[in-house]
């Protein structure tokens, strides 16, 4: 034990002798681990939260497709769908988008219809809104400087501006779901968008037996070939694959960081500096065994990689779960004018942490030990002469 501690002490002294180089490597290595762990933590936490809350999404939604595009669906489709055995209620949903020229933001406008009479939590103010009133998300309220009782002008499709009174604002905690929402009464929705009384955006279909959802969807497609049923399973599957570490830019960032690590490890594995060779030669000459030199290099690799791994992981965790992924935010935001603050729940996948460790710490240590082994088995005289 004492011998190992002495070798560790020597390894630390040796690293300290080249302190600028060693600290530089630790800083770069930590930064790489920080980037990789931030990406893994962010994508996993985002995905888990989406999967948890979207369990409440409608079990079956029916859209109408016309010329390959989503089209408003006539209400009588719902009556015919309701006749399918196993189908309960068919509730029309009324929603659309509104571009706000004063902020440049896009809002999602919904009518408080169907299940809209339920009392809502996560809202300050009243719900459902009466005629001439709206309930807005935190993002809308912030971008328009709204508070309860203030007015928000909305220009209808007839070019007329209507002033709505803000009856309620969704709480900050629900931002991931409601940030860009404007909810108004069905009457106002029809008035603003001139959709007519007989058409809805899509239909929510209640199916009594969860195992029958696919069958009901198939039957709907048979009766109405111009429809596209979307099941809850499909919604969850979309979110399962949507925000993944393998997706577009995330993969680019991930790949970049991984490549930087490979370059770092490769530089180590490619060979030793003249100074390091000289050191190995002297150690051999004064009686160090090959195994001692290997152990010395093992400790050097271990010190560098373990400190970097832990520092990077702590940094990544704080970045995502305490600072809301603030460094990634400009990239994540894209062109979205209103964007929710990421206050994700700290879901952690231990498997990912272990994989990250095996992908970085172990290769780095191997890359440190291997060239030393080559030098250590060579005659000290040859090593010292280079």
């Amino acid at each position, binding site marked *: 034990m004492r011998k190992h501690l002495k070798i560790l002490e020597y390894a*630390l002294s040796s690293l300290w002798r080249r302190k600028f180089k060693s600290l530089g490597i630790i800083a770069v290595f930590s930064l790489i681990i920080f980037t990789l762990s931030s990406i893994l933590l962010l994508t996993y936490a985002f995905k888990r939260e989406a999967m948890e809350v979207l369990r409440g999404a409608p079990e079956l939604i029916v859209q109408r497709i016309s010329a390959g*595009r989503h089209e408003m669906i006539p209400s009588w489709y719902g009556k015919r769908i309701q006749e399918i055995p196993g189908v309960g209620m068919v509730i029309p949903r009324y929603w659309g988008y509104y571009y706000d020229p004063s902020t440049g933001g896009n809002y999602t406008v919904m009518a408080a219809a169907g299940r809209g009479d339920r009392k809502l939590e996560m809202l300050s103010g009243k719900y459902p809104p009466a005629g001439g009133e709206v309930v807005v998300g935190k993002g809308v309220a912030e971008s328009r400087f709204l508070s309860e009782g203030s007015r928000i002008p909305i220009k209808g499709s007839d070019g007329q501006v209507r002033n709505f009174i803000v009856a309620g604002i969704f709480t900050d905690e629900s931002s991931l779901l409601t940030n860009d929402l404007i909810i108004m009464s069905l009457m106002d929705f029809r008035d603003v968008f001139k959709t007519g009384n007989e058409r809805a955006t899509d239909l929510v279909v209640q199916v009594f037996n969860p195992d029958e959802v696919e069958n009901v969807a198939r039957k709907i497609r048979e009766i109405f070939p111009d429809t596209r049923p979307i099941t809850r399973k499909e919604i969850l599957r979309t979110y399962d694959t949507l925000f993944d570490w393998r997706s577009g830019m995330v993969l680019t960032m991930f790949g970049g960081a991984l490549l930087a690590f490979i370059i770092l490890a490769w530089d180590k594995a490619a060979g030793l500096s003249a100074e390091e060779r000289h050191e190995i030669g002297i150690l051999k000459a004064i009686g160090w065994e090959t195994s001692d030199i290997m152990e010395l290099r093992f400790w050097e690799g271990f010190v560098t990689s373990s400190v970097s791994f832990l520092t990077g992981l702590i940094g990544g965790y704080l970045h995502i779960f305490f600072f809301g992924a603030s460094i990634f935010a400009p*990239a*994540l935001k894209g062109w979205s004018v209103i964007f929710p603050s990421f206050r994700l729940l700290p879901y952690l996948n231990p498997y990912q942490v272990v994989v990250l460790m095996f992908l970085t710490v172990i290769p780095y240590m191997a890359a440190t030990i291997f060239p030393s082994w080559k030098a250590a088995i060579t005659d000290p005289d040859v090593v010292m002469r280079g």
Partner: protein
Amino acid sequence: MHKHRIFIAAIITEILILMVLFLSGISRLKSAEGLLQRKTELVKSLMLTDLSVWTEARYTRHPSQADWFAPFQDYPSSIEHFPAGSLLHPPSGAYGEGVE
């Protein structure tokens, strides 16, 4: 003979910080069960299908409701031009499996 003590202390401190973070995370998750339940109820009440994250385009605001070709809808062979589109992974069906 003290550098290794500093190193071991540093490593133990880092492991302890990490464990405190993980444990606080677990307790945060436990205390957030009610919050999650409220969010799920909100999704149920408003019949929501998507998270309100990227509002720049229809297919980024409602990825689960969009057509698979929505990013390229402007004209045939048009390029996908919304930045958030490069962050989203295409749905598994878009690769061929599960397409009807």
